[in-house]
């Protein structure tokens, strides 16, 4: 039948395609936080250098991107992994087992993490200690770790509204969660003196860390699986909630959101850049050096990304919400890439 003939042709095409395939398009995968920035660079790159195709950028999270990146070397593997955290030693090891040894880490800037509420809510002035006390699974009561009894914000700090605690936090698969645990929960734990008390009681550091960063699961804090837009959707329907969002997301929706100060500092690009606002994370991408000479346009793309035209303080990435790295860092980065 005709159908069989079609199958034969398609199968034939598939089997021959694998070997005859040469890639002329850069392939990138990784963090959904870096995605908007990478998209801006990729599209502008395609407009300025029309002889190159616009890179394909997959979005699946930092971890998934690194996994693809470490699959091996060659045209069938991706060239760049976008991440919202540095690569961990175990990932570097996996990479080098697969033959991906020579990789360049490129730091593109910072992203602030903010606590946002509905625009009509009163001003929020939080401290790391408040947040820790509101969200910890277990808190110190009479020298013992016991499940957190606090139900309302004003029970922690009388300046806060008399609302039920409801905080939407990105789930475990997001790079944001790790930063939240490290820079909010653990730090809040230290600032409220819990760490010292626990250490004095003979608990080891690992156990203290786990006790500090575990977030309560009794319906006051909610893990969200999606991106910032999901957190945003939650607080637009539950007006008394707080959502943990990225600063760039807040900037794009400032007409509907109000952002909380943390330890008295308002999150802005300036305060994140100067490190006054402590909850931020670095954004990176990693590129396979071997691919620089195989994939057409890859070297040009990286150079274009690193130029001040893109990641500079007046560039389109800063306008979208990227907190740019200091000039010296950018220059060192560029010199390091060009010198090789």
């Amino acid at each position, binding site marked *: *039948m005709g*159908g*069989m003939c*079609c*199958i034969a042709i*398609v199968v034939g095409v*598939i*089997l021959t*395609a*694998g*070997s005859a*395939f040469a*890639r002329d*398009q850069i*392939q990138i*995968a990784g963090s*959904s936080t870096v*995605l*908007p920035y*990478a*998209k*801006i660079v*990729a*599209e502008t790159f*395609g*407009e*300025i250098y029309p002889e190159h*195709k*616009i890179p*394909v*950028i*997959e*979005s*699946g999270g930092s971890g998934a991107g690194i996994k*693809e990146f470490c*699959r091996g070397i060659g045209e*069938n593997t*991706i060239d760049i992994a976008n991440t919202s955290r540095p690569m961990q030693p175990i990932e570097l090891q996996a990479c080098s087992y697969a033959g991906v040894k020579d990789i360049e880490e490129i730091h593109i800037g910072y992203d602030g993490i903010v606590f946002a509420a509905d*625009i009509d809510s009163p001003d929020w002035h939080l401290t790391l200690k408040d947040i820790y006390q509101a969200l910890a699974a277990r808190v110190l009561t009479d020298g013992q770790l016991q499940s957190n009894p606090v139900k309302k914000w004003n029970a922690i700090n009388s300046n806060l509204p008399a609302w039920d605690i409801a905080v939407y936090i990105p789930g475990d698969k997001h790079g944001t969660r790790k930063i939240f645990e490290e820079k909010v929960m653990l730090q809040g734990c230290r600032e409220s003196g819990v760490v010292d008390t626990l250490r004095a009681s003979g608990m080891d550091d690992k156990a203290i860390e786990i006790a500090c960063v575990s977030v309560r699961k009794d319906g006051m804090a909610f893990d969200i699986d*999606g*991106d*910032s*837009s999901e957190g945003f959707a939650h607080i637009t329907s539950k007006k008394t909630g707080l959502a943990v969002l990225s600063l*760039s*997301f807040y900037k*794009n*929706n*400032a*007409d*509907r959101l109000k952002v909380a100060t943390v330890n008295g500092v308002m999150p802005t690009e300036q305060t994140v850049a100067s490190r006054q606002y402590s909850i931020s994370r670095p954004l990176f991408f990693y590129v396979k050096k071997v691919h620089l000479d195989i994939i057409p346009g890859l070297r040009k793309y990286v150079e274009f990304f690193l130029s001040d035209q893109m990641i500079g303080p007046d560039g389109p990435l800063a306008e979208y*919400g990227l907190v740019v790295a200091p000039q010296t860092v950018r220059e060192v980065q560029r010199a390091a890439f060009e010198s090789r």
Partner: protein
Amino acid sequence: MRKGDVCHTTPMRRDIGLRQRYRAEMRFRAYGITAISIGMFFLGVLLWSVFSKGYSAFWQTSLTLNIRFDAAIIDPKNIRDHDSQVLFTANYPLLVRNALAEKLGVPSDDHLALHEVSHMFSSSVRVQLRDLVLGHPQLIGGIQKVTFLASADIDSAFKKQINLAGSETRRKISNRQIEWMHRLSADGSLHRAFNTGLFTLTASNRPETSGLGVALVGSLYMMLIVLVLSLPIGVAAAVYLEEYTHKNRFTDLVEVNINNLASVPSIVFGLLGLAVFVNFFGLPRSTSIVGGLVLTLMTLPTIIIATRSALRAVPPSIRSAALGIGASKTQTVFHHVLPLAVPGIMTGTIIGLAHALGETAPLLLIGMVAFVANYPITPMDPATALPVQIYMWANEAERAFVERTSGAIIVLLVFLILMNIASIVLRRRFERRW
């Protein structure tokens, strides 16, 4: 008293539970109506939320202005005759900014105001005017009426999707820009037009130039691949299993497996596709060929099951009659049984395709959940799919992507409705009852 007497005097009717049985029927009808109303209510809420947010995506705010193609800006050194590169890198947005500033009466030394003027229109004018000038170099020095896109923020503000009442510092559009917007709209330079770009443009970081083009082509390629592969394979498998084999332990095993595959979560097919097609056969990632193959695997069980039940519905008398007048087994099947089963097969295939069209999970692992801004020429080029584009837009931060997400859902729903209507029409027209 008297009435009671009458009651007593009439003979007792045999209790056959009539009233109870009527009541049971009434109750069941009420349950049924409640069930349908609940379903209709949620469908209504879904459609309302999608359409109320999404209908505005089909209109886009544009500006029409007379633009002076100033040679001093495009080619200040007058070298374009021997160096065409200059036409390529010229500062085209400046032409539009100057034209707009002139129209709005903004002085040429008010840099802050000029900065705000240049945020009124989409930066896609660079490519638009560049292509215009490269195609018609004689435009340089002259004046030409050009229609171009307004920026996404102006578009959202014009559609009243940005809260303009709040403080100026809290929104991405200033009071001055709003006033300009109203002025331009009053004299007709700023207007709404049907958003053809939604269907023709590719993914973009600018909401105003984002479209479903790549996703539509990618979905089309994948549907073609699914149709071409799964229909013949599925029908051949079903005909063999139904007409040629005898029921034994082996066919039972095959049947259990096929039914099982039909209910396997689709992400599993994605894992399989990644392992087999990408890593083993070395097919390129993110391409519609890999997506089509994965969706073929997913659709096959649906088609096999539908075909088998369609074949089973053909009465045995047809087979007996054909065999009786001397047709061979194969002639019986292909001349008589299969043609009668075609409506059922078509319905099953269309439903399988509609299912595949709406699938995202298996595409995630083979790299099709991606930003792709070049049209795929062949199925071997990177592409996305309609549901994937919806997912990508839903995660965007800009306000203007909200309406596009819902707009894309409307487009997908229209395709699904068309396919499902087609399957009903086919069944109505060709189905035979015995």
